């Protein structure tokens, strides 16, 4: 096996990795705030909103991500009436599925974070004269994010790996090019290279979240 061969295989894979990383960043940047919004809706006193939020989480967590991916890429255009307005390019449709799926998981993570905060924190803020909004933004939410950090790290590592599902809807990404090279050359090396690339990405994430956890350890 020559260096030329390795470089030749890696070039398209690195291009594919760009798609992987782009999808990851897009999904995480949108699904974290989305999840937080859904958490607040689940706690809303206006019942219809809370009900919608709970249903959304139930459906997105209760069905396979692969099914959701296929639905957004191939199912949406088939919807009667509105289907013709819901034709997106594959990447956009897939990104939508990832965002909605991960948004549901983040919503549950943040809800757990909120639940972990003692009601004494609300009471202390109240007797100091803070409004509900000030209590949320200055006291509750910073603590909630800290509690949610390890689970968020976990989810983000899952997300990096789940991007490989793009393979199923034929959006070329890292795994797609690895598989193509394996088929073409009858060699395992491209799989090995793909594995190393995923490991590198998860390593960066692991370090990033470790640093974040350390930065937000209040001792």
């Amino acid at each position, binding site marked *: 096996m020559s260096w030329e061969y390795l470089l030749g295989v890696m070039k398209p894979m690195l291009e594919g990795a760009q798609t992987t990383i782009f999808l990851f960043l897009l999904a995480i940047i949108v699904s974290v705030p989305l999840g937080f919004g859904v958490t607040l809706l689940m706690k809303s006193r206006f019942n219809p909103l809370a009900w919608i939020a709970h249903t959304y989480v139930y459906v997105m967590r209760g069905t396979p991500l692969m099914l959701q991916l296929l639905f957004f890429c191939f199912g949406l255009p088939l919807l009667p009436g509105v289907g013709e307005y819901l034709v997106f390019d594959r990447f956009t449709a897939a990104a939508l599925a990832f965002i909605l799926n991960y948004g549901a998981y983040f919503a549950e993570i943040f809800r757990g974070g909120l639940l972990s905060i*003692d009601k*004494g*924190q609300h*009471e*202390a*803020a*109240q*007797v*100091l*004269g*803070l409004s509900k909004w*000030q209590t949320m933004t*200055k*006291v509750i939410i*910073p*603590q909630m994010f*800290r509690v949610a950090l390890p689970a968020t790290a976990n989810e983000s590592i899952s997300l990096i790996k789940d991007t490989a599902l793009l393979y199923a809807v034929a959006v070329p990404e890292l795994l797609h090019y690895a598989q193509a090279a394996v088929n073409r050359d009858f060699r395992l090396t491209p799989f090995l290279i793909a594995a190393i690339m995923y490991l590198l990405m998860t390593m960066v994430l692991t370090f990033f979240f470790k640093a974040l956890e350390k930065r*937000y350890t*209040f*001792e």
Partner: protein
Amino acid sequence: MTHIIEVNQLRKSFGTLDVLKQVSFNVEPGEVIAVIGPSGSGKSTMLRSLIHLEDISGGTIRIQGQALAENGSYAGAADIRKITDRMGMVFQHFNLFPHLTVQANLELAPKTLKKESSAIIRQRSLELLGKVGLSDKADAYPANLSGGQKQRVAIARALMMQPEILLFDEPTSALDPELTGEVLRVIKQLAQENMTMMIVTHEMSFARDVADRVFFMDNGEIAEAGTPEQIFGNAKLSRTRTFLQRVEVEG
């Protein structure tokens, strides 16, 4: 002269259970009231309803003559805020903000409410940390403090709002016995400075020492009230005497 706290026929019930039944009392400016009694007697509920941490079922609460609650319902949000602005509370479990340093705990509320310049706020927070003997802990996080230190920070935090009334809900109950002294000393100093205080406590010797009057609560009512000498030396009711005997044996 108006009473600083005036409570009339305060009532609270959960279903058929009466947590508070017809509690009435007045507190005068500068008075220190110790509230004692068995657990479940409604001491904490009574105290917490004075600062709108509980819903009530009936009765009137007036703070400096202004109605915080009338006929069982609290005033509007703006009035509640205005009235409770002059009150502070210290909790059994401190309830410090764990994500903020000691100094930031003190400064969070005044800085958020923006009624004073941050220079003034800063000056007062350092001054109060000195007062509770924790100047060297300004940059520490609550997680690194002992229970006694946490409670002293909580007292300083309450004092930041310059309250005219301070409520203490079992301020030493969560502390190791050897740490209660440092907290009680701070409260005693406040008493000497004529702060109006109501203190729910199980520390009988402290109550005797620092209180102007003692309320003995039992079964959702103030069964007996009087000076420490009356309550501890010469209680009228046998249930007061029984309670005091029991805690003395246990304590």
